[in-house]
């Protein structure tokens, strides 16, 4: 049987994968966001408030938190969609810091069973006890995380193979040429941002209920930088790319205790090397195309 430490690592990989996929969606539309952790945080707080303080069912809270994150992402995107490149990246960073600073001041507590619960600024938000109250084991919760991750991957796999996924990639490669094809990139960029925000939200809400305690500091810029790097390492050719990035970082670097203290040095070096040798990651578009072709030939044989 898997021990709790290993299960925690595996579940962490699953939850952070959702955040990495969220950054990946924006990367394929040609935008670098340093702010996906904001939507992760918005959903973590709102979802946890819904289950812990309002007594809402888990699934409703999951949807509520993720929708709230998606709406926030859509609003930010609608305001910033006409800027791109560095300016867009800075605006996402600024928004994520606004959210983090807001959470540092945000206090909303209620007495539940004689205990004061709810977010309380820098002290964070503890007592998110849904998994204990419902006798959910770590193993069961890990399965739940991977079920949601699986559903997200299936949806994105089909989106990527559809005309919509192709439009995302067209915008990422050449926005002006995309316009010449009768496509208004603005609508699709906002849609991609909402989708990315929603998926980050799923991860955030699951994260809050997994760790039972959250604080604003968790959702700092480094979380956003990591989520971005996962796609750049794993590859931008398929939705499986960011998962490779997460598995390499959390599964390998964080879990091997010998190099644990040097994780950030190794990870930073890895990102630098990858950007030089494989600027679009391990599973970039060309490799994915070759793999797909090889798979097709193999199936044909």
């Amino acid at each position, binding site marked *: 049987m898997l021990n709790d430490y290993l299960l925690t690592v595996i579940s962490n990989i699953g939850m952070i994968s959702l955040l990495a996929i969220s950054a990946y969606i924006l990367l394929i539309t040609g935008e670098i966001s340093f702010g996906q952790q904001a939507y992760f945080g918005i959903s973590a707080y709102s979802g946890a408030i819904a289950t812990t303080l309002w007594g809402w069912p888990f699934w409703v809270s999951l949807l509520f938190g993720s929708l709230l994150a998606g709406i926030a992402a859509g609003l930010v995107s609608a305001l910033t969609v006409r800027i791109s490149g560095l300016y867009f990246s800075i605006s996402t960073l600024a928004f994520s810091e606004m959210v983090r600073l807001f959470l540092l001041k945000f206090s909303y507590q209620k007495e539940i069973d004689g205990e004061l619960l709810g977010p309380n600024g820098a002290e964070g938000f503890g007592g998110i006890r849904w998994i204990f109250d419902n006798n959910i084991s770590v193993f069961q919760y890990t399965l739940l995380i991977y079920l949601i991750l699986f559903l997200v991957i299936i949806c994105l796999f089909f989106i990527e193979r*559809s*005309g*919509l996924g*192709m*439009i995302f*990639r*067209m915008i990422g*490669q*050449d926005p*002006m*040429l995309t*316009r*010449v*094809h*009768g*496509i*208004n990139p603005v609508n699709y960029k906002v849609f991609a941002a909402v989708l990315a925000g929603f998926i980050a939200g799923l991860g955030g809400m699951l994260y809050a209920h997994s760790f039972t305690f959250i604080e604003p500091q968790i959702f700092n810029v480094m979380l956003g930088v990591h989520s971005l790097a996962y796609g750049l390492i794993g590859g931008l050719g398929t939705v499986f790319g960011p998962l490779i990035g997460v598995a390499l970082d959390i599964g390998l670097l964080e879990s091997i205790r010998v190099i644990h203290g040097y994780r950030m040095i190794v990870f930073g070096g890895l990102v630098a090397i990858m950007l030089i040798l494989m600027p679009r990651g391990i599973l970039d*578009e*060309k490799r994915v*195309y070759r793999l797909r*072709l090889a798979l097709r030939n193999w199936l044909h044989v």
Partner: protein
Amino acid sequence: MKPLLNVSSLKVNYGGVYAVKKISIKVYEGQIVSITGANGAGKSSTLNALTGIYAPSSGEIVFRGENIAGFHAHRIVKRRLVQVPEGRHLFPNLTVRENLFTGNHCLGRFFLGKFIPENILNIFPMLRDRLDTSASSLSGGQAQMLALARGLMAQPLLLLLDEPTLGLDPIMVKEVLNLLSILRKQGLTILVVEQNVRQTLEISDYAYVLESGRMVMEGRGTELLNDSMLVKSYIGFGKS
């Protein structure tokens, strides 16, 4: 007969510098009309203003009776005024098939239609065998064919071509221009911007010559070919 496209007094300026200075163009249905001139004459700027890539600073662009001056590119292409941009501009990370699908969007869908009409593959048979190869692996000539095919996927009423023979070898240049003649015979109206003056004039029903953003000459293609001043300025001495 009313022109399909009627451009009048078009001006385009970039930060105070006029690239196009009050030019007027008419394109009638079923014609090949060309705009020629040296580098920096304002040919591509004119084309980009017609398709909404640049907003004209003044003038009218009337397409099928509607003034489309200042419309965004994605709104213009939905009226089936379709541009094949200079430099072949493909989506290199997509396959040939996917690049062709990208031409489908003008019909107003949120998603791209995943179909390729048979007649497109009949016009460009070399693309049929390469549908699943990456667009980045195509040669210059093949890429130009793909760019043209993609333009036709949008079912244009007027196809605008920006330097379609740029960087191609002489055999490929001939092939591309032959193809334009065939498309014209099939009823397509074409406005082409070219530096390859002689061969373009040979296939053009009407032509305009630009110099420093101004229209300096216009007339039937064959007439301009016999104009000694034009031959001297743009084609060189002697005809081959």
